[in-house]
């Protein structure tokens, strides 16, 4: 079974530039998550999709971050404009079902995109 795919793996940009990350979840997984992992910290949930609908985006800085999951499969996360504090690894994860659905809620993470904002 193929894992969660993410691209690019690395990205370096200047502050105030824009950047986009792409994620392709495991086939058949309805739930998709984007996390931000700052160096030395645990992942922090940015946004959660159930199929193509947003379930939770309470921690997404909506003035600069946006995400979409068209057709309920792959997803893109965009930052515009980027700030220095956005330097982090952006992780995508997917699960068959949402958390709380026992037996279907294990999250599988992709390798992440390391973003450096200069």
């Amino acid at each position, binding site marked *: 079974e193929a894992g*969660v795919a993410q691209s690019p793996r690395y990205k370096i940009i200047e502050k105030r530039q824009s950047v986009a990350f792409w994620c392709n979840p495991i086939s058949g997984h309805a739930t998709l998550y984007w996390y931000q992992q700052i160096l*030395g*910290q*645990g*992942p*922090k*949930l940015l946004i*959660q999709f159930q199929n193509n609908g947003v*379930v*939770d985006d*309470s921690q997404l800085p909506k003035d600069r971050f946006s995400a979409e999951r068209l057709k309920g499969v792959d997803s893109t996360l965009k930052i515009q404009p980027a700030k220095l504090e956005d330097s982090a690894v952006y*992780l995508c*994860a997917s699960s068959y079902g*949402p*958390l*709380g659905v*026992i037996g279907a*809620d*294990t*999250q*599988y*993470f*992709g*390798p*992440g995109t390391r973003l450096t904002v200069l």
Partner: protein
Amino acid sequence: QQQVKQSPQSLIVQKGGISIINCAYENTAFDYFPWYQQFPGKGPALLIAIRPDVSEKKEGRFTISFNKSAKQFSLHIMDSQPGDSATYFCAATSNSGGSNYKLTFGKGTLLTVNP
């Protein structure tokens, strides 16, 4: 803000020894406690998880001990191996309102197992 406090920040263990990582939480609504293992350049991977209806869960060399009254849970790695060297994150979930749950992660423990 809901938090999970993890300690120690780093841990060095000799091969064959026992590694112990601890986590504490405040929110009594947390009801699922997974541990994730992360190798450099990789995403976290679920290692083992426990729900609060049991006090201990064992899978191979990995054991979670859960103390509901103390609001603490810990990961024990028996017979630690150099291949176990990684960053370990504890996490917890609760209903964030309505029907949705989300994971709250600790800050991680960097485990180094010396040969």
